[in-house]
């Protein structure tokens, strides 16, 4: 198991989702190397998950681990603020 687990909710092919995927992938690779899991969930394909997680905004990034669970909305352009906003202790 990896120490960092994320889920990114997107909807189909929209531009915001594409930008978010690119930004979070780059952030994870640079920050956690192999020590992370990132699931990208398309709510147009897995509608039941949107209901289950009560996702009303797209794109939404969910930090599942480490706890507490947190959500960031939008295309994640300002990745430099992710560490601080998600309370990630990288030491």
């Amino acid at each position, binding site marked *: 198991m990896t120490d960092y687990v994320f889920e990114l909710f997107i*909807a189909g092919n929209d531009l915001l989702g594409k930008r978010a995927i690119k930004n979070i992938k780059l952030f994870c690779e640079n920050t956690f190397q192999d020590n992370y899991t990132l699931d990208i969930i398309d709510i147009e394909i897995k509608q039941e998950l949107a209901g289950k997680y*009560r996702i*009303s*905004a*797209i794109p939404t990034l969910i930090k599942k681990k480490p706890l507490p*669970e947190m*959500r960031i909305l939008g295309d994640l352009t*300002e990745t430099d603020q992710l560490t601080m906003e998600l309370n990630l202790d990288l030491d």
Partner: protein
Amino acid sequence: MYQYNDLLFIIENLPDPVIIVDLDGIVKFINPATESFLGIKKEELLGELFGFPLGNEGSKEITFFRPTGERFIAEINKVNVSWKGEKSYLLSLRDITQREQRLMNLNHELEATILELEQAKEVAEIANNIKSKFLANMSHEIRTPLNGIMGMTELLKETDLNDEQKDYLSLFSHSGKLLLKLINEILDLSKLEAEKVHLDNVMFNIFELVESTCQLLTSKAQQKGLSITYSTDSQMPTIIQGDPTRLKQILFNIVGNAIKFTSQGEIIVKSIPSTYKKHNYLEILFSVSDTGIGIPEDKKKYIFESFTQADPSINSNYGGTGLGLTISKKLIEMMGGKIWFDSKVDKGSTFYFTVIMKIAEKKADELKPEKKSKKSNQNKENQLSIVLKQDNFFSKNKPMRILLAEDNDINRMIVEKYLKSNLIEIDYAQNGKIAVNKYKRNVYDIVLMDIRMPEMNGHEATQTIRNIEKEKGRKKIPIIAFSAGATTEEIQRNLRSGCNEHLSKPIIKEELVNTIFKYFEIIKQNQDEPSPNICKGMTC
């Protein structure tokens, strides 16, 4: 200061949704507008994890889904606030679905317009292509009868005419030359527009180019009582690399215009190296000043457009096609330069243009000097016959045997008249195939080959003759191509097919005679050592 309740009242009644979340993204407050906006009841949201966007500057675009599945786009703004003593974020939302939808519709409309424009462009390009081909064909077709008219005019000049007839003939000849110039320029412009013109890249002497171009125009200037002064800056590298023919065409045109529009005074032509560029490239600045009529202020912007002269009456007073500057501008742009001018009515104009050329690495003496002006050729009319008589070779040996391949009777007659001499024998072939057969069976000294002929064209006939020479070990016979096309590519195609020379129609007597002179020595050598394997029968 506002009271807490006043502020709460304002937020509660804002038409835009407002959400307050703590730093973990848990919802602490929503206003009624949020409930209807998200389609979720207040109780369902309070205490839930909602999240927040990154960054504090500007708004973010986010797609929202209502529980009904309805999708809309919103702008979300985040501001740091204190809520009940705790650091929090105030998120405000604004529905921009309609705006986005409008933008999307506009985008679609724009894409459709672009598509339509692209299609229209394609259609226009096809039409333009057809126009270019049509012009090229038409100018070719017009040139052939024009060749006949001009040739006959030349011949008529040599007959006994009274003064009145001479005057008429001079006008006749002048109109013919104008028509030919117009056809050449239209063809040139259509090629430039179709981007079919490729610039040469050869070494040439820039000093000589300026000198020879100005000398060509000196007599025209002198006829009007004008003087031409030309100078090339001593700092200019002697040998540069580029397209001398096209550069000469530009300079000829601009200096020619200066002469045309000046009735007294002088024309000053200058060229200087203006800017040295990377990789041995040089920007050369030319200026051509005159003391002529000048260009009125309101006509200045049209001066480079096709068929435009400053005043419609100019054409009748000064002549010209109105295409020269358009062609020059296009050529200058192809050479990486630009053209502009200063002009005052009744004071004169100065045209400036730049071209970018490469400084050649070879030294000046490695370059063949350009041919000097052709003034000395003026007296060479009928000289062929005189020279043949003086030259014992042709009187002692056989006469000069010419094979003329030409399908047009009038053109054939003109060449015959031009070369008329009892020391010359002319044999005719109506097409390339007959020319090749005649060449197989007979011995000739020189071939004059029209390019466009039925059955077998001049290129194929020339290639076949060259092949026969190789196979049979026959001497290489000089072949002079006659063609209506005068473009660089056409000349190159003629030379590639094996012709030694190219003469553009209408054939000028002087040029034809001079060209034949060039091959005198070769003809004599060929006659001295007859070729083997001349086939006398029809079986070859």
